[in-house]
């Protein structure tokens, strides 16, 4: 185990300015344990008084070795590890993994499962944005927003628990569809949520949007231009806050998103305030999508019938010999996919979340790689913090909305 205090300055000298060596600027460690770094992120700030001259992010404090561990498990068992990457978007991680596996296997997904996946993905998006608004507000000293946002989040977690038994790490979306059908109380709970949520979003906006203190702390802080976003490969609310309407749900639609009518919110300015406005509007658009999806929910099975890849329901095992054999083979050995590699991506609340999956024909994935938006978006930290005060760094980290489980994997 290394002693993290031994940051050898010579190693970082190419990233810091000349003045750090003469002692004119100070190096401050904003360490892994910090109330406002949204997880275990370490920033090395080079300060000239209170102004940040350079910022060197140091990640890896939550490195879990998921990609290596998934190579040792079969495709179905590996999905369990996947929820815990971006832990604020667990169903999104499941969904992108299942989209990659289904693309590889050319597995069909029944229409009811597609619509339910959309509903769950949008509920997860609202859940993630609620945590974001709560914690970012908390960083910028708006404590009551946190308590209000958590109150709404409990309703979403109740819906997840109703479907799958688990509040957060549900592993509910499986290759071929969903694990099982939603219970009868699902529709009433979701419709109730969609009915009360717009007024609650208005409540959060009334606390923050025209608040003079919030505006002072957010306007023209952490500005990034549209060209820089493209150069640095930034996706998600950051690029939409810089004015470019790029959303994977419209650009490369998946799981039936092309059937729903919704807008992509953008805002000009590229600062913290723009990203805040984009996320608040995204929550409203998500409610719109959920409403349309609930109205068009078809009746039918929720998982594919292809017994070579999808285990049969338990009720069938007692009456059919083939089902028993399929069940046995799938749970002991796993299925054998064709050889090849695929890339599938979804729009997570943070940006483009992609899975690169390569198979060599064996029941265990040969290589799974998660292209995570937090890892990509964290690269612009030096760019955004240059020239701002130390107090602004906190707001900037919050506005990029990083989740360290996503960044470190």
């Amino acid at each position: 185990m290394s002693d993290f205090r031994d940051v050898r300055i010579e190693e970082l000298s190419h990233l810091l300015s000349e003045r750090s060596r003469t002692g004119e600027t100070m190096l401050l460690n904003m360490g892994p344990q910090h109330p406002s770094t949204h997880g275990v992120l370490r920033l090395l700030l080079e300060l000239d008084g209170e102004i940040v001259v350079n910022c060197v992010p140091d990640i890896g404090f939550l490195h879990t070795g998921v990609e290596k561990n998934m190579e040792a498990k079969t495709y179905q068992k590996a999905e369990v590890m996947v929820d815990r990457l971006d832990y604020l978007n667990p169903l999104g991680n499941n969904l992108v993994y299942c989209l990659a596996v289904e693309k590889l296997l050319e597995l069909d997904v029944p229409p009811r499962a597609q619509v339910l996946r959309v509903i769950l993905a949008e509920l997860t998006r609202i859940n993630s944005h609620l945590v974001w608004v709560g914690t970012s507000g908390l960083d910028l000293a708006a404590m009551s927003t946190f308590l209000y946002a958590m109150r709404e989040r409990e309703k979403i977690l109740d819906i997840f628990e109703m479907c799958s038994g688990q509040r957060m790490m549900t592993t509910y979306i499986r290759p071929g569809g969903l694990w099982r059908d939603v219970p009868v109380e699902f529709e009433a709970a979701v419709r109730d949520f969609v009915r009360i949520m717009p007024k609650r979003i208005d409540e959060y906006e009334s606390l923050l949007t025209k608040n003079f203190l919030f505006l002072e702390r957010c306007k023209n802080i952490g500005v990034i231009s549209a060209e820089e976003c493209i150069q640095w490969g930034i996706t998600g609310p950051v690029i939409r806050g810089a004015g470019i309407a790029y959303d994977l749900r419209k650009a490369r639609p998946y799981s039936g998103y092309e059937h729903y009518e919704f807008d992509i919110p953008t805002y000009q300015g590229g600062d913290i305030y723009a990203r805040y406005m984009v996320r608040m509007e995204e929550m409203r658009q998500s409610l719109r999508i959920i409403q349309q999806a609930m109205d068009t929910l078809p009746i039918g099975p929720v998982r594919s019938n292809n017994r070579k890849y999808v285990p049969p329901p338990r009720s069938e095992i007692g009456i059919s010999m083939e089902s028993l054999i399929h069940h046995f083979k799938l749970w002991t050995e796993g299925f054998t996919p064709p050889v090849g590699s695929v890339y599938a991506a979804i729009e997570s609340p943070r940006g483009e979340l992609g899975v690169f999956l390569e198979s060599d024909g064996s029941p265990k994935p040969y290589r799974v790689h998660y292209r995570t938006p937090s890892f990509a978006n964290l690269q612009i930290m030096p760019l955004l913090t240059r020239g701002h005060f130390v107090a602004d760094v906190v707001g900037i980290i919050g506005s990029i909305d990083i989740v360290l489980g996503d960044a470190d994997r």
Partner: protein
Amino acid sequence: MGIEQKTGNLGVVTARLEDVVNWARTNSMWPMLFGLACCAIEMMAAQASNYDLSRFGMELNRASPRQSDLMIVAGRVSRKMAPVVRQLYDQMPDPKWVIAMGDCASCGGVFNNYAILQGVDEILPVDVYVAGCPPRPEGLIHGIVTLHEKVRQETLKDWK
């Protein structure tokens, strides 16, 4: 009866020293803000208004280890983070307690590989383990109440 009858009118109450000190420690145990991963989100949900931790005197998360009594290790501890955790534990003044929240902090959880410590008890002495992935807020509250019961049974000899 006895002394209380005579001194009660003067506003004096007698009790055992251990009871009073343990009562004071449990009712105002300040946790250190140490959320690492997914369990941290459930810890935040436990502190929010639905499952209130404020009733235990814990709504205030001290960011500085020097001012806190309780370290709730919420989340998986990776090998890069382990020296940091140990240093923070060493910086906490006595008396201090540790709750290992969740499966990853108790035993390594789902992740049995090169990068994750198989249980934070490899580097810290843990008082209460809370199982779950992540444990429900009620589970965390059960863990905290168990810790309170453990603290209430401490005697003069256990105090540091």
